[in-house]
């Protein structure tokens, strides 16, 4: 058996056991005690009803027995009898089915279902209806939405940047599914609090931990990330306590709870459970996404395999012979190029030029719009007839040889000068001229492969030592042949600031002919030597490959040893059209020079007799042949490359989850809630006023040996004393299981009460978020306890408990206010009737869409965006909120699928009191405002519903207008109109028809653009008027 060391746990235990007695400690020094209120655990913890476990009460006897359908009725009736009040009669069937539909599905019943239920003579018709509704997949949407209120679900981060969370819906989908399959509430909860810690946790169980990923994230510039991580953790603690315990522990973030026996230390013990969790985004594509991906991928793989085998067959069977044939007939370029040794490289625009071992210049750093590179280079060639500029593709995807966005460049001017030091007694000259071989060893990594030297250079020098000085110079003046033609040549000028007085002879070299392997029509390479900075050489659209340009000198230039070639690569196009990778070479071959793309190395190999080629050279040649020359392989390779680009991407869908850190974070009390002020260290633990905490790893806490003295050290001290012992701290799974310990007095009560409140408009405990000493007492304490114990007896089945409640006589009562009750019990605490209340925001939308026949029944998936005026979205920070209206059937999805942007919530939802999703919401307000009226009257979405309903009725067979009016009424309100109602609507219909007769041009816009039958617009318009009126009645948005 694992030896359990004590010291670290003892800290936690001590905390738990002493917390109730810890008074007035805000985590700071004792001096601050006076400022905090005192907790009196003796008073509150032991006498407060909610902290004592529920005991299953006897079902009371009542005088009237016939009313009793199940024990719920007995509890309520016995109280009513005491008050000498009679319960209300059962509501009529139309009201009942409407009530049940809204309560269980959040949708109005279909008129066919209403009629069927009214006509159903079976004795268990009601129960059958309940069963049918509980089995509907829309049940998960309705009760899932209730849960999402608690989970503060939203589709964006919150705070300034308020970045969208495109995959937040995965958690919503999980909730809907879990509710639909009636995942028992204990398991439902454990998976959300600690699904990642369950043995062999499934993807779904990890997605469930998204419950605590709905916290806010602040990505505003300059925020302290730790501050907001702490805030999120605090919220996780407070939310957990509110949702499962019905307690407000939040106060204890900063100080001991003023009223309830919760010490600040205990708050941070709970905090410690969550402090050790990290946010982890888990790839979690849905089955449909995955299936589509796999299908596409399979097709893609097949095609790739086919192309590959085709290529392999070709290479196996034909390539070698084709290569030999090619080698025999290939024409080698006439020119032989010597790579120049660049000794200095500078940028006028501040870019960073670095010379690689192979002579390539790579430009990095600052990326100015325009630039001029100046390069100083040497060559071993004695005379030069031309220069070559190679530009290389940056291997990074989307880049090219140039530094512009698409990899292009414009070489405005390419200029070359020859420069020679003219001072005779330059010191290094004393060391004497270097031979070409010496100079190569010294600084030229890439030998100049002039034909006569080539054989000596079969193995190029591999190293380069740039710290050595450039090769020494001879003092011959480098003058082009035909010296003296015109002014400007051979100007000798002193080098400023030089230690030695030296002078330079700089001679421009005239370039007469340029050619390139490729240039677009408007940017020919000739533009680079025409003296006009507005013209130049570019390479679009062939960005992702090497290119070559060659420049012929007007005359054969004699280059004395030690002379320097000074290149100016002028790039004046702008917008960063500058070179990124290039290399310079020179040649002595006589012209005309051609821009041949065959690399020098391949030329050398081809010049080497086959039998003298090394294997490496053979391989290089074969590779070159396949990749560059062979039309067959090039075609096949091209197909492969093109195919690779088409590879289907793995779906980006990522679930927001929590995962436990391997290395626990230490938790300290935050003095006064300030995360920068660390107080005492604490261990994970629960509230002393409640039942004992057990950790599944360390056994029952109370079974540990007593502690001798209170240690303030953390688990590290524990690991010191034993060998091989590792600290095992209680974790979130322990906390979650603790919540469902049968000894827990709160969770079952709190949850049963919350379920009750969704079905009666208020809880048996009206303060459904506060079961503490400041909360209200239950109106029916025995009933609450009976429900709490029954809930557990039913295996925490949400559906079973709901079924029990909605099949009671209490639930089935009429909700009509009774005069004698209004005075005695206006808030309906005694439950002598049902309650009548306005639908929630989402249900208001759903009721409109349903009556209109527009509603999309699709369940789950990404959030949708109904139409929203652009200036409303623009209220988000600096136009960062992107709101693209959904199209097609997505426009008509249920309200719970509306994208919830925290800083710019969808106005209709807020107008109807949807929670702002920033903190957990246990009860929605039910306001009644003019903005609500404006919304249902005029909002385009709601108007569209009225129009659709008008058209819907017009499209159905009807005897006359009266028939149509009745149908509108019944479709909306699930009942026929009374005579007075019918007469009033008939009058409205007549008035409307008359107005439209007088202004017929209004008919088409009212009937709507999808009116279809233009001849009936007037008829449809009048019906739209009736529909819009009925949909704006109090009864339409009220659950009775």
């Amino acid at each position: 058996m694992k030896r359990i060391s004590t010291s670290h746990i003892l800290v936690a235990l001590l905390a738990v056991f002493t917390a109730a007695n810890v008074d007035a400690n805000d985590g700071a020094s004792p001096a601050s005690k006076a400022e905090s209120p005192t907790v009196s655990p003796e008073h509150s913890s032991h006498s407060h009803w909610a902290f004592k476990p529920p005991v299953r009460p006897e079902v009371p006897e009542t005088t009237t027995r016939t009313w009793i359908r199940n024990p719920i009725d007995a509890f309520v009736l016995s109280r009513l009898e005491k008050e000498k009040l009679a319960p209300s009669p059962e509501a009529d069937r139309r009201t009942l089915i409407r009530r049940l539909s809204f309560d269980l599905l959040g949708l109005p019943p279909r008129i066919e279902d209403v009629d069927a239920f009214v006509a159903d003579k079976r004795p268990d018709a009601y129960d059958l209806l309940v069963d049918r509704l509980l089995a509907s997949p829309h049940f998960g949407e309705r009760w899932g939405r209730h849960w999402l209120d608690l989970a503060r679900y939203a589709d964006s981060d919150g705070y300034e940047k308020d970045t969208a969370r495109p995959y937040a819906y995965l958690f919503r989908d999980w909730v809907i599914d879990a509710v639909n399959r009636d995942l028992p509430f204990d398991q439902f909860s454990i998976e959300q609090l600690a699904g990642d810690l369950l043995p062999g946790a499934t993807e779904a169980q990890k997605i469930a931990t998204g419950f605590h990923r709905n916290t806010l994230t602040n990505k505003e510039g300059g925020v302290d990330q730790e501050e907001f991580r702490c805030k999120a953790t605090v919220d996780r603690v407070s939310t957990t306590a509110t949702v499962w315990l019905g307690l407000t522990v939040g106060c204890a973030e900063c100080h001991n709870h003023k009223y309830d026996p919760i010490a600040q230390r205990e708050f941070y013990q709970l905090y410690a459970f969550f402090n050790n969790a990290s946010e982890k985004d888990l790839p979690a594509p849905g089955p449909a996404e995955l299936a589509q991906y796999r299908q596409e991928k399979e097709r893609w793989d097949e095609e790739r395999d086919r192309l590959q085998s085709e290529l392999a067959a070709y290479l196996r069977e034909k390539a070698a012979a084709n290569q030999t044939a090619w080698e025999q007939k290939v024409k080698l370029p006439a020119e032989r190029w010597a790579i120049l040794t660049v000794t200095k490289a500078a940028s006028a625009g501040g870019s960073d030029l670095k010379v690689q071992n192979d002579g390539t210049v790579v430009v990095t750093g600052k990326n100015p719009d325009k630039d001029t590179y100046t390069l100083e280079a040497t060559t071993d060639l004695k005379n030069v007839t031309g220069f070559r500029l190679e530009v290389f593709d940056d291997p990074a995807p989307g880049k090219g040889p140039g530094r512009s966005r698409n990899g292009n460049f414009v070489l405005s001017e390419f200029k070359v000068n020859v420069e020679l030091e003219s001072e005779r007694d330059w010191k290094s000259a004393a060391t004497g001229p270097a031979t070409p071989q010496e100079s190569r060893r010294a600084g030229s990594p890439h030998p100049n492969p002039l034909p006569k030297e080539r054989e000596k250079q079969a193995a190029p020098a591999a190293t380069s030592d740039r710290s050595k000085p450039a090769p020494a110079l001879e003092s011959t003046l480098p003058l082009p042949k035909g010296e003296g033609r015109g002014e400007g040549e051979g100007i000798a000028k002193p080098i400023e600031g030089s230690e030695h007085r030296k002078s330079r002879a700089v001679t421009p070299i005239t370039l007469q002919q340029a050619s390139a392997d490729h240039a677009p029509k408007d940017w020919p390479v000739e533009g680079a030597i025409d003296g006009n900075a507005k013209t130049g050489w570019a390479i679009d659209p062939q960005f992702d490959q090497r290119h070559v340009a060659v420049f012929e000198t007007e005359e054969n230039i004699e280059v004395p040893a030690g002379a320097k070639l000074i290149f100016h690569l002028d790039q004046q196009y702008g917008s960063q059209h500058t070179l990124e990778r290039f290399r310079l070479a020179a040649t002595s071959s006589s012209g005309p020079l051609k821009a041949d793309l065959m690399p020098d190395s391949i030329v050398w190999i081809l010049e080497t007799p086959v039998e003298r080629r090394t294997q490496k050279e053979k391989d290089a040649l074969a590779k070159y042949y396949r990749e560059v020359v062979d039309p067959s392989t090039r075609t096949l390779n091209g197909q492969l490359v093109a195919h690779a680009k088409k590879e289907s991407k793995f779906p980006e869908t990522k679930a927001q989850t929590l995962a436990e850190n391997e290395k626990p974070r230490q938790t300290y009390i935050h003095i006064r809630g300030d995360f920068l002020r660390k107080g005492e260290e604490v261990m994970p633990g629960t509230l002393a006023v409640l039942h004992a905490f057990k950790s599944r790893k360390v056994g029952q806490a109370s079974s540990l040996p007593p502690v001798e003295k209170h240690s303030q050290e953390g688990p590290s001290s524990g690991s010191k004393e034993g060998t091989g012992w590792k600290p095992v701290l209680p974790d979130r799974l322990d906390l979650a299981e603790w919540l469902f310990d049968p000894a827990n007095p709160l969770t079952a009560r709190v949850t049963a009460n919350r379920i009750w409140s969704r079905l009666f408009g208020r809880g048996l405990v009206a303060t459904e978020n506060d079961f503490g000493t400041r909360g209200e007492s239950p109106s029916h304490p025995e009933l609450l306890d009976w429900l709490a114990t029954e809930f557990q007896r039913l295996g925490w089945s949400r559906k079973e408990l709901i079924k029990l409640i909605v099949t009671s006589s209490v639930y089935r009562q009429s909700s009509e206010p009774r005069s004698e009750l209004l005075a005695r019990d206006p808030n309906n605490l005694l439950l002598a009737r049902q309650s009548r209340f306005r639908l929630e925001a989402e249900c208001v939308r759903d009721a409109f869409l349903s009556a209109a026949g527009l509603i999309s029944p699709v369940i789950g998936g990404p959030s949708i965006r109904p139409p929203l005026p652009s200036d409303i979205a623009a209220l988000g920070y600096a136009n960062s909120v992107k709101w693209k209206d959904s199209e097609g059937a997505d426009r008509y999805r249920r309200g719970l699928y509306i994208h919830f942007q925290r800083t710019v919530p969808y106005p209709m939802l807020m107008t109807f009191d949807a929670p702002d999703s920033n903190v957990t919401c246990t009860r929605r307000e039910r306001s009644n405002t003019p903005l609500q009226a404006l919304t249902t009257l005029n909002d385009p979405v709601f108007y569209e519903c009225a129009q659709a309903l008008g058209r819907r009725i017009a499209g159905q067979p009807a005897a006359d207008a009266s028939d149509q009016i009745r149908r509108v009424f019944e479709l909306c309100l699930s009942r026929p109109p009374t005579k007075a109602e019918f007469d009033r609507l008939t009058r409205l219909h007549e008035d409307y028809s008359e107005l439209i007769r007088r202004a017929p041009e209004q008919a088409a816009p009212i009937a709507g653009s999808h009116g279809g039958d233009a001849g009936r617009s007037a008829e449809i318009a009048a019906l739209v008027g009736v529909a819009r009126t009925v949909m704006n009645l109090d009864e339409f948005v009220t659950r009775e």
Partner: protein
Amino acid sequence: MESNFREIVQLTRRDFLTSTASGLGALAFASMLKADGLLAKDPAPTARNPLEPRPPHFAPKANACIFIFMEGAPSQMDLFDPKPKLNELHGQKLPESLVKEVRFAFIQKDSAVIMGSPRQFTKHGQCGMELSDLLPHLGSCADDIALIRSMHTDQFNHHPGQLMMNCGVATFGKPTIGAWLNYGLGSVCQNLPGYVVLTAGRGTSGGASLWSSGFLPSNYAGVLFRNQGDPVLNLSNPPGITSEMQHLGLDAIMDLNKLRMKTVADPEIASRISAYELAFKMQTSAPELMDLSGESKATLEAYGVDRDDPRLKADRGGGPGQYRAFARNCLLARRLVERGVRFVNIYHASWDHHSNLNAELKFNAGMADQPIAALLKDLKQRGLLDTTLLIWGSEFGRTPLGENRIGREPNTGRDHHPFAFSLWMAGGGVKGGQVIGETDEIGWSIVKEPIHINDFHATILHLFGLDHERLTYRFQGRDFRLTDVAGKVFEKLLA
């Protein structure tokens, strides 16, 4: 009993529909319930009409407030709090002791230096209030203004700071000042919302959370009046529906709801009827409010509603026409207050001058100075200033240090500074012509009369006759206040 019940419902209903002042019926209704002890624990207000005017705790000075919120934090040492020492110390580092414990949003401590100000401050009014040359018009109102140079807050990031300034705490989900005032006092305005929000410039960091009713019912949330389209979302009749048809439809809705109430005697139906009536009234009154054609030429010119924006390169967003929109909002604020609206919020974003401060602050101040001064004088001239509290404020201030964020040209702007910043109040029972508080010679810390945001809020509520400790709402088991757990009325501000 039955007749009694009918009477109550009728009485209640009549009250909703007609009462502007007394609300006696609803109060009687509520007190009847209270007598039975059934409502005793319900949070106030108990009346069924949540916007029914309610008496304050004691005699108020103010009955309306216009809060001009300069989102992003204007630089106080370039507008309100002259610090000549900054020019002397320009380019020098601060002693490490001062910045050691401080967290900045963007400043790199190692190389941060003090940044001087090119602004000229002159004395204004009989009180001799020193204001920057960017605020010449405001200078002419100095004797009506109480300038506070010693505000401080807990937050140094925008959105939390803005929540703090509006809600008293830096967390989402809490009501704003405007929501609290409407909750505490109700609204006397029968055809407009009690809390109206006007915006100009770009979107703020806080978005709509800055006028949320938080945990209070949505009756108390700010209603955005838009700069385009309908002044209020969904105010206009939909396509094809003429006002005659709208009227017909509403009549039918009223009649049918009344018929329903005969069967189901739920006062909530009466409440729905009154909501529809107010909605219908708003359809007329809101466009009338927005229509400035009745304003005199002199008034329009005083506010500068036709001023074009000066040219400014690389501003902080918000697009063209900000000068017009802001001036118009100031004028609308007066019109709203005239019509009995309790709380008007004017937002302008952004004043977050991390760089290019001199040019951009000049642009913003040029936009704000004239219309705000005109508003103040206009209120005064119409006798509204005595009961209307006018506030210029923001979420925090800016540093005396220049900002040296990596990757930007250093010292052309200032970073966030929560330890000392300026705001001003006028009218509504505030004693004008005084400067409250003092900061040290570089404006880093407060040396005299510090006022925390909770104190500021306590003072605002006091001006409205409300005790900030008594104006509470029970939510999640706790009685919440605008002032959280702190706040002290700053007596010196009171006239």
